[in-house]
């Protein structure tokens, strides 16, 4: 096991100094240790601070208190070794699919300075990624010519093109229908099992989290705290069929109870 790859040590975040002075934190006391190559999922009710957690993990926001370490070094700013996909695919509409996937290589060093000379090789890499998600034939199409699910697949390819060690997904399948979602779960599962980067998946879909992750963390309502940690020891490789087994439902039910408990707590406090 060795050193954890990602470590959050008693991390707190308030959105502004004024809020911090009042003691209003968005997330509190986050403690997390993730091994290399581990797939973790974070679930919680709306507005609990999941996206805030993402901002901390990507280095977009520094913590108000506590320390975040990735790959042994403290996180001070956006990490080059991470890729991120959001709920909205946000593909640039004036670029074709292939150009969209190549975008991170135009930004991140060392690829940026070698871009001209390595262009052909990068394109091959991009096409391989698109092929892995089944979109090789759409490389010269524009984003509006693709469906929502396809755009989201392209977005994930874009997040992986620069071979990050860490993939962060902020409710990436939230806007898709249930069947497309299950398709993309399998796509993500396959990409991860071949390349074994770390994944942090933020989602509100419990089945998604149990199907994909090694460990699921449940976050409380704002201010967000981790209230539960569940290791998912279902054997891999996991087929969609496993989602209909008793064991699977049991785990989902358990997680649901945690979240249920949070909501009744919140209701009870509101009632006063």
């Amino acid at each position: 096991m060795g050193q954890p790859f990602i470590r959050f040590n008693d991390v707190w975040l308030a959105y502004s100094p004024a809020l911090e002075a009042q003691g209003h934190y968005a997330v509190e006391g986050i403690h997390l240790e993730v091994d290399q190559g581990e797939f973790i999922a974070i679930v919680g009710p709306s507005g609990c601070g999941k996206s805030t957690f993402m901002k901390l993990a990507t280095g977009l926001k520094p913590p108000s208190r506590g320390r975040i370490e990735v790959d042994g070094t403290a996180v001070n700013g956006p990490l080059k070794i991470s890729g991120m996909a959001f709920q909205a695919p946000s593909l640039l509409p004036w670029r074709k699919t292939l150009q969209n996937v190549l975008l991170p290589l135009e930004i991140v060093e060392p690829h940026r300075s070698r871009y001209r000379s390595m262009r052909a090789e990068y394109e091959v890499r991009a096409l391989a990624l698109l092929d892995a998600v089944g979109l090789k034939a759409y490389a010269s199409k524009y984003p509006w010519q693709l469906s929502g699910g396809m755009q989201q697949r392209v977005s994930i390819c874009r997040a992986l093109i620069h071979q990050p060690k860490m993939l962060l997904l902020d409710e990436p399948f939230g806007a898709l229908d249930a069947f497309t979602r299950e398709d993309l779960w399998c796509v993500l599962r396959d990409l991860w099992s071949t390349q074994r980067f770390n994944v942090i998946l933020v989602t509100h879909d419990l089945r998604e989290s149990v199907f994909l992750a090694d460990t699921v963390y449940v976050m409380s309502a704002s201010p967000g705290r981790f209230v539960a940690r569940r290791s998912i020891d279902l054997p891999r490789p996991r087929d969609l069929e496993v989602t209909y087994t008793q064991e699977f439902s049991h785990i989902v039910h358990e997680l649901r109870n945690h979240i249920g408990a949070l909501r009744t707590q919140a209701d009870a406090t509101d009632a006063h």
Partner: protein
Amino acid sequence: MNRKLERASPWLLLIALVLAWQIICSGFQVSEFIFPSPLRILEQFAEHKATIAAHAWRTFWVTMAGFGLAILVGVLLGFAIGSSRLAYSAIYPLMTAFNALPKAAFVPILVVWFGIGVGPAVLTAFLISFFPIMVNIATGLATLEPELEDVLRVLGARRWDVLIKVGLPRSMPYFYASLKVAITLAFVGTTVSEMTAANEGIGYLLISAGSAMQMGLAFSGLVVVGAMAMLMYELFSALEKNTTAWAHRGSQH
């Protein structure tokens, strides 16, 4: 059938208007000094076509020079204003005040500085037409969706990268829209300057034909300027469709 009718409709309307004009002029025996009929305009156009062509060419290249300058300055200033809040607060109010001044009033001043002729014409065209370009580029940059920006920010992109890779391409539809407005303004600027401070160009032609009571010639001049402005407008429209097709998907039939 519908498609063809749509495409032909502006021409049909134009022909209808010209016919109506001709009928009114001939029917009511309107004096040609007041309101020349289309036939009379055509006559004088054919008679003086060499002179008209020379003046038209002069107006055209002078306008293009001023317009080119307007694009350069408009884009640079628009970029500065759209990308920096400080620049925005500092420059924008002064620009608006400047834009409110009628540029025709500038011409005598420009004449004192640059003499009669090309100088004031180019500069008036420039001064009157750079503002829409500047405003549109600034708006395009300032209204950049945060979602698009985030995609680059998580990679550690600098502000410059975001502006060049996402902001400017995102602003191209606004840019072309402003070009279509600015080119018509540029022609106005040139013509106004030529009317008071030049010996050549359509503006000068309008004044001299007017004072010689050759209304047919004056109207020919107007038609020529209108045609040139329209041509340039259509050119930018075509460029716009070719380069920013991604932004016009909603209006496809």
